[in-house]
């Protein structure tokens, strides 16, 4: 127990060092053009715009970050047990320039529970998931763009046994990871039509039934 805590503390320290080093690099790199460091003797703080002035770090951003609220609705289909599912995902979060971080809820319906349409064992199957998504717009050319992202969430497999109609039982659940890539077309304003490809796999505990490729389309 103590050993594990020690390892976790070491990992946390390393992450903190890495983050602080990265932050320093960004500040140094962007100093000439994006942000200039306030001189120690500056007394005329009132001459700066208080909305953009960061008193905490003494930095005066000359270019504002593009921070915006983001909420999307996706439809998707995944090949599981050899058959396609139909699903929807709704996310809500923040976009900062080309990066979007959002919380999401996902639902998928299985037309063939466990890959079977007989209903002799399970008559219905649904999957739900809640999690966090992280997405980066990596490339832009005119109105077209390419994004990469990853969803990590807690999924639940709900099965309805033939003997208990109208009652779903929670059978498998765990940590799901879903890397994705998409191409988009920036149509009007921030409305970016997207179509993408993903691969989902339950990371822990492993459940091979939910390993599969899928495609998604962003509706709004």
């Amino acid at each position, binding site marked *: 127990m103590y050993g594990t805590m020690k390892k976790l503390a070491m990992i946390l320290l390393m992450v903190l060092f890495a983050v602080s080093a990265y932050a320093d690099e960004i500040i140094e790199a962007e100093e000439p053009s994006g942000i200039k460091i306030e001189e120690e003797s500056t007394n005329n703080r009132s001459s700066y715009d208080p909305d953009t002035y960061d008193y905490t770090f003494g930095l005066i951003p000359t270019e504002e970050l593009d921070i915006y609220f983001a909420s999307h609705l996706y439809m998707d289909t995944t090949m599981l047990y050899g058959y396609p599912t139909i699903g929807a995902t709704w996310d809500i979060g923040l976009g900062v320039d080309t990066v979007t971080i959002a919380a999401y809820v996902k639902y998928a319906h299985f037309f063939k*529970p*466990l*890959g*079977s349409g*007989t209903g*002799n*064992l*399970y008559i219905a199957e649904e999957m739900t998931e809640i999690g966090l998504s992280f997405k980066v717009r990596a490339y832009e050319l005119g109105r077209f763009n390419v994004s990469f992202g990853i969803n990590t969430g807690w999924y639940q497999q*709900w*099965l*309805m*046994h*033939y*003997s*208990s109609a*109208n*009652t*779903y*039982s*929670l*059978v*498998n659940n765990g940590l799901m990871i879903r890397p994705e890539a998409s191409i988009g077309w920036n149509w009007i304003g921030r409305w970016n039509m997207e179509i993408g490809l993903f691969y989902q796999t339950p990371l822990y505990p492993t459940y091979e*039934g939910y390993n599969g490729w899928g495609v998604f389309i962003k509706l709004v």
Partner: protein
Amino acid sequence: MLFSLLFIGCDDMKSLMSLIPKFESSLPNVISGKFAYYENETDQSQRIYTELYEFDPINRTFTHSVAGEDEERKGSYTYAYSDFIITECNGFLTLAYEDGTSAAYAFKYEATAVGGPVSITLRQDNVDKVLIFEP
């Protein structure tokens, strides 16, 4: 009239509510349906069972009938899984008969997604009794 409409409305609401599926965090009860024990393969092919168990998963009750005996024994059952992987699971099953006797077994349940339940193997004192699912 309004009063009766209110009651009709309540009944409708109950009917509607019953259509909404329930979600339970517990594993499904797979000890369900009819399972027969055959002495040998010939009996199985001719469907001449030696014992027949019928499990009711809703009330968790069962009936146990033995070929050649008129009396059908009834009782309730409890189960616990030690391992569950959808089409195959292991655990413990206790049959409590109405006459006060009981029987405890280790069980192994096997099924296929397409065909449904296949068998329940009951183990007691290192003796296996394979019960075949009767559709």
